[in-house]
């Protein structure tokens, strides 16, 4: 029997593919189980993952303890369900403060819930520091460092007197061409439908590109042992 899992997708920055990765995990989880994963979206603007899975998403205001209870206690109810948490960039610190303070990992272990933290990082020192900070807070969760190659940034090298945290990238998200990128960004696009070959309407080149993208993600996760 496969353990239930929660993917916590986060970053210290916006617009770097965080929601795309959360959607991808959601679709992959819905393919492996009859029961769709429950999604928690901490982006109160309404522009997050709730647009893609409105029927399976709960918006969570992390500043409200009632919402914290609604999210964390639901995940720890032990009802064999999978979860995806899309953590808004401006809520990342608060999320992990609560995560640590309430001892979420202990609770997850008690109910057999696997926890995987997927952190999208860029080349900046702040991003690395946040990644290192989160990673060192974890005890039993899997930390997966993700870099999105579609985010164009110049690598920044530390000054000679600086010592930057070392974070090894576990997963690279390939850059999609503009047409394929537009396709997957559309609110009605579902990776699950695509994998189930229900998108014959798409151009061959676009389909091939998205397949390559998915295959690339699959091969990387397999090779590094990420669930």
């Amino acid at each position, binding site marked *: 029997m496969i353990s239930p899992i929660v993917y916590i997708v986060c970053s210290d920055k916006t617009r770097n593919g965080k929601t795309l990765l959360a959607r991808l995990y959601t679709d992959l989880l819905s393919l492996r189980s009859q029961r769709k994963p429950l999604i928690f979206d901490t982006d109160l603007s309404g522009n997050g993952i709730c647009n893609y899975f409105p029927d399976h998403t709960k918006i969570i205001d992390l500043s409200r*303890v*009632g919402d914290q*209870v609604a999210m964390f206690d639901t995940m720890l109810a032990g009802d064999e369900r999978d979860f995806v948490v899309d953590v808004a960039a401006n809520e990342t610190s608060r999320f992990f403060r*609560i995560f640590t303070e*309430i001892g979420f990992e202990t*609770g997850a272990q008690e109910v057999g819930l696997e926890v995987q933290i997927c952190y999208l990082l860029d080349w900046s020192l702040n991003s690395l520091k946040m990644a290192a900070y989160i990673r060192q807070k974890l005890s039993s969760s899997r930390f997966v460092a993700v870099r999105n190659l579609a985010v164009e940034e110049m690598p920044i090298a530390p000054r000679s007197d600086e010592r930057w945290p070392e974070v090894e990238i576990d997963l690279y998200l390939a850059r999609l061409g503009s047409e394929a990128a537009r396709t997957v960004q559309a609110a009605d696009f579902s990776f699950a439908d695509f994998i189930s070959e229900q998108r014959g309407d798409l151009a061959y080149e676009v389909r091939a590109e998205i397949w390559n993208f998915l295959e690339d993600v699959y091969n990387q996760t397999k090779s590094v042992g990420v669930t």
Partner: protein
Amino acid sequence: MKHTLILVGADKGGVGKTTVARALLDFLARKNILARAFDTENPRGTLKRFYPRITEIIDLDSVSDQMKLLDTIETSAVKVTVVDLKAGNLSTALDIFDRIGVLDAAAAGEFDLALIHVVGPAIASLDEMNEVTQYTKDMAYVVAKNFINETNFFEWDDRTYQKYFAKLQDAREIEVPKLNEMAYEQVDLAGVTFSDFIANQNAKGGAGDFSFVLRGYVRKWIADLDAEWGHLDMINKLLDASRSPMDEPAGGDAAE
């Protein structure tokens, strides 16, 4: 082990006095130090709701109740007594203890005496500290700044506060950290000890249905508060005595 009498009080209501008494009893229980409690909030007794088996409600104005508390100090097998003084009753209670010789007995070393004075952010609380110092010469005097039920708290003017606190040469200070309001309310509603709430155990001893998140907040709060208790000599003395091989091993519930 010498008997220790710990008074918890404040001359101002609503500063979290009973919460501090509950937290102290919780701490002692976790450290396997047997304690008994007296609740002077007669006739209701909030403390008794949380510690029904070890708490007795008394009226400090009643001589027979004074006897229940004080005449049993020497004879009780339980060596720690915690008294939760009724709100607004601190000075009066200290005056009563002074008049009936309790303070003198403590000064003579018959037992250890401590006062945990729970204070709020108002100047009135600072004035209270000055009023009680006439009684605190021969006891461990602890000022507990309570953050628990305030959100924008302790807006003391630091200079004013220091001016008051500087006069209290031998006083020790602890901070009772803030506990999330919802977590506090849920423990209150459940009518259980903080430790039982964390352990998800209801008032009847069965499995509770308390939120993991709220239990987590209470666990963190208790851990922070434990560090504060650890700053106090009188607490460390109790811990040392409880570890001493000369004493009988502690265990079980004091009142059972």
